[in-house]
């Protein structure tokens, strides 16, 4: 295990200690103990930048299941490192923020930080694993920790609902992704992403390629809340705000983005990938921004805004994937789209993180997040207001904030679609820049609403639970850092990010495009002249302000979508039907009657055996190898048959017990005839003890009543039992006639004396060769006797009455 592996699982290990800290030091907020870990990890991963900026890749392998090609291979390249830095960096800030947000006396901090660390470790595992199966395991772990964190306030019904919804949707996608991974393995024979990428061109015409592509995309789209799977994200806002800032805007929801970026070299060979990723991305972008405008809850606005921004990044990745179809990097038109995606990923984490924290502060200090109740907070919380201005203006794409830069690049990328002459894109290409522009207008509107409805306008103290005041300084540190980053990135994007982060990330996304000695040259311009992008931005601002001011006039448009939660209704409906349906289905056959179960079992027994005998043409009767029939054996067989049949017609309990005993004794005689002395002895003694046992119980046993005499009932029983009997006979005959391999008994016969120094083979097999069987057998016996003892002696319910 290398230091890198340790760094990935450090949060998981550290999570074990959290409850101890919580118990031992109740006076100190548990968050202070947790905080150092992400900071150390951030510093550790930061040191990798010097490696990755030279396009070097660090790989460490820890064998797990080598025979199946499943190993914990940690790989640090530009893309993984970018995410690792986001996870640990934002993680540090969120934990710092949460220390002030969550009360140390009222909340169960031990569980909160345990879950949070669980998530952090899982997320690091997702982005730093080169093995797809390991990545999948971590991927599901992020879903689980997200479930636990959304349901943190599990007393609230909405929390539980949101937690369940996110779990169902993301785990469903995760399972689809697992299917995709397995399909990839079938095609390439490897789980390693590096190796699969190397084989990308060989598998593109494979019949499983498209199913694998769809399965993987399903996983990515559900995780990254792409339309129509975005419905879980708004409900996930029931989580504590630090969690929303961390999982549901900066990191976990970007796991899908990560997956798409990571597997672009594998799948983008096919045009379908470009179509789907770009198409779903742009639709999500529009629908998210459109829906965000009508929300009244601060966090809901942010949730839909996140959905829309994720769509934006997704569509950029889709368009960027087209770059693989053009040689070289120098004048490749579509690389700019991928660059914008990576760049916006960082920017989104900074401004959206700070905005979530602002929403948390407003909620914390006023007691509500409803923008209809808020207003005029500017005077009470000037610092928060400043941060909010920076965050929202960046989100709206205004200078001098980093959102402006990536928004301009986004427009550039979308305009390049017009020139894309692959995969029949020409026909609809014009839609991409148009939808992008419209969505940007809506983005502008909800950004303005977010800040101005909250901080300006009329103050309504009568609607607030608390008297608003500025947040404590500790709570402001994290959003201030993020907001400063928003501005710093705008001015120093090239020196800070281009070479260190973005270029290595691009190299990881497009490994095939680079030839020896070349590299991606990313240069982000603040001012790039009077180009179409600039006019588009100006148009966004003009229309945005116009529509913002006239919002009350056109808000009716949302009434046009009467069931605004149509997708949610669909989800609820499916869930309810699935529950009712499976309930009905289960109740229909799980009647609780032993008889019905036995009927199922025996019927299936007959059908399955008969079918396989018939289909495989397995029935065979070979009389050449049978042994001779002796007169004693024949008589004995006759007696057994008579005895067995008589039990059916026995009128009294004594008769049936004795008949059973008689059959048992005759079976032991058979053992004598068939040269099985051990069996004969055992059977004799067992039969004696059993009959004694039956007789001990005899007086307490019920009298044999006359059986239910309905003919249909009897007929059905008779039919089933005759079927079972015939099937067993047929199987016995075929098994006797077909011998496909040598009996393994020869080994025992030869080695009984040499290996175990015994002469009685049966006994040697029991105590030596197959000792495990015997060991478990006597264990079962002991359990049975304890069960009997318990049933007789312990009368837990009736004991008091008697």
């Amino acid at each position, binding site marked *: 295990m290398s230091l890198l592996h340790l760094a990935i699982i450090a949060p998981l290990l550290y999570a074990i200690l959290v409850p101890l800290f919580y118990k031992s030091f109740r006076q100190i907020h548990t968050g202070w103990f947790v905080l150092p870990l992400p900071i150390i990890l951030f510093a550790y991963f930061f040191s990798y930048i010097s490696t990755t900026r030279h396009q070097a890749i660090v790989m460490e392998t820890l064998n797990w299941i080598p025979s199946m090609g499943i190993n914990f291979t940690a790989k640090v390249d530009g893309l993984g490192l970018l995410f690792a830095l986001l996870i640990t960096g934002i993680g540090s800030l969120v934990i710092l923020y949460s220390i002030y947000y969550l009360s140390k006396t009222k909340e169960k901090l031990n569980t909160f930080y345990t879950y949070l660390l669980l998530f952090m470790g899982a997320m690091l595992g997702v982005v730093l694993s080169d093995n797809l199966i390991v990545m999948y395991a971590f991927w599901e772990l992020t879903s689980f920790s997200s479930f636990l964190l959304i349901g943190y306030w599990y007393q609230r019904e909405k929390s539980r609902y949101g937690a369940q919804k996110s779990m169902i949707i993301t785990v469903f996608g995760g399972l689809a992704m697992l299917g995709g991974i397995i399909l990839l393995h079938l095609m390439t024979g490897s789980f390693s992403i590096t190796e699969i990428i190397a084989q990308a061109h060989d598998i593109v015409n494979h019949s499983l390629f498209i199913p694998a592509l769809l399965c993987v995309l399903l996983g990515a789209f559900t995780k990254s809340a792409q339309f129509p799977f975005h419905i879980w994200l708004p409900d996930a806002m029931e989580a504590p705000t630090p969690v929303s800032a961390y999982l549901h805007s900066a990191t976990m929801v970007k796991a899908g983005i990560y997956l798409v970026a990571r597997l672009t070299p594998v799948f983008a060979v096919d045009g379908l990938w470009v179509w789907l990723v770009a198409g779903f991305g742009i639709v999500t972008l529009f629908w998210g921004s459109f829906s965000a405008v009508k929300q009244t809850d601060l966090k809901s606005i942010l949730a839909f805004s996140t959905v829309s921004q994720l769509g934006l990044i997704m569509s950029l990745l889709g368009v960027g994937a087209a770059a693989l179809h053009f040689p070289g990097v120098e004048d490749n038109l579509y690389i700019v789209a991928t660059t914008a995606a990576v760049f916006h990923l960082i920017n989104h984490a900074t401004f959206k993180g700070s905005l979530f924290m602002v929403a948390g502060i407003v909620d914390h200090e006023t007691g509500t997040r409803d923008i209809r109740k808020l207003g005029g907070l500017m005077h009470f919380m000037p610092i928060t207001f400043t941060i909010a201005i920076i965050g929202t203006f960046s989100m709206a794409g205004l200078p001098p904030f980093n959102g402006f830069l990536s928004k301009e690049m986004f427009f550039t990328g979308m305009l390049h679609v017009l020139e894309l002459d692959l995969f029949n894109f020409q026909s609809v290409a014009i839609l991409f820049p148009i939808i992008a522009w419209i969505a940007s207008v809506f983005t502008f509107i909800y950004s303005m609403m977010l800040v101005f409805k909250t901080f300006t306008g009329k103050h309504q103290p009568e609607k607030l639970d608390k008297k608003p005041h500025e947040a404590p300084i500790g709570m402001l540190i994290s959003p201030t850092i993020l907001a400063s980053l928003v501005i710093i990135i705008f001015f120093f994007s090239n020196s800070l990010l281009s070479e260190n982060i973005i270029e290595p990330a691009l190299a990881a996304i497009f490994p095939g495009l680079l030839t020896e000695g070349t590299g991606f040259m990313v240069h982000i311009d603040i001012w790039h002249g009077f180009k179409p992008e600039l006019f588009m931005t100006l148009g966004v601002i003009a229309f945005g302000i116009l529509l913002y001011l006239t919002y009350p006039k056109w808000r009716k448009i949302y009434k046009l979508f009467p069931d605004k939660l149509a997708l949610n209704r669909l989800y609820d409906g499916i869930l309810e039907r699935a529950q009712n349906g499976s309930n009905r289905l289960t109740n229909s056959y799980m009647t609780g009657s032993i008889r019905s179960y036995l009927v199922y079992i025996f019927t299936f027994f007959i059908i399955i055996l008969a079918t396989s005998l018939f289909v495989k043409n397995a029935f065979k009767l070979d009389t050449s190898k049978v042994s001779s029939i002796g007169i004693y054996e024949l008589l004995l067989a006759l007696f057994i048959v008579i005895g067995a049949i008589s039990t059916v017609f026995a009128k009294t309990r004594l008769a049936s017990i004795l008949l059973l005993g008689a059959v048992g004794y005759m079976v032991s005689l058979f053992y004598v005839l068939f040269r099985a002395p051990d069996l004969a002895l055992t059977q004799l003694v067992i039969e004696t003890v059993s009959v004694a*046992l039956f007789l001990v119980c005899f007086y307490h046993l019920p009298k044999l009543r006359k059986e239910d005499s309905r003919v249909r009932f009897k007929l059905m029983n008779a039919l089933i039992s005759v079927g079972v009997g015939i099937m067993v006979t047929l199987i016995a005959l075929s098994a006797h006639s077909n011998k496909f391999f040598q009996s393994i008994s020869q080994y025992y016969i030869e080695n009984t004396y040499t290996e175990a120094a015994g002469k009685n083979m*049966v006994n040697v097999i029991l105590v030596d060769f197959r000792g495990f069987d015997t060991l478990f057998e006597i264990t079962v016996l002991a359990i049975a006797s304890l069960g009997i003892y318990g049933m007789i002696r312990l009368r837990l319910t009736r004991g008091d009455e008697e």
Partner: protein
Amino acid sequence: MRSNNNIILETTIKVVLFIIVLFSVYIFFAGHYYPGGGFIGGLMTSGAIVLLLIAYDIKTVATILPVNYRTMTGIGLLFAIGTSAGSLLFNVPFLTHAFGHIEVPVLGEISLHTATLFDLGVYLVVVGVTMTIIQTIGEDE
């Protein structure tokens, strides 16, 4: 159980009992070479005790043989597991048995097996289980 007045059964059992028990012990030890072993030996011993139960009532038998059969089951399991796990001490797989031949005065050469210890565990469990079952049912009135 019921009190009884069957003199013939009582008298016969006093003699037969020891023969059966002795035979069962023999059959247990013979198991490695001839028909027999822990299962049969154990069952036969319990058969003898059941016979005793039929002749006398359960309280008398409990005074003659003051054995807690559940403890006996436990000890038997411990024997079986202990013998199996003992092989781990010698760095061989679980359940590996060893055997050896030893010269003993008077008796001559005899062979010793750890497998017999395992079988002893089986014997004890079988007796313990059978008797637990019969005793619990018999006592429940």
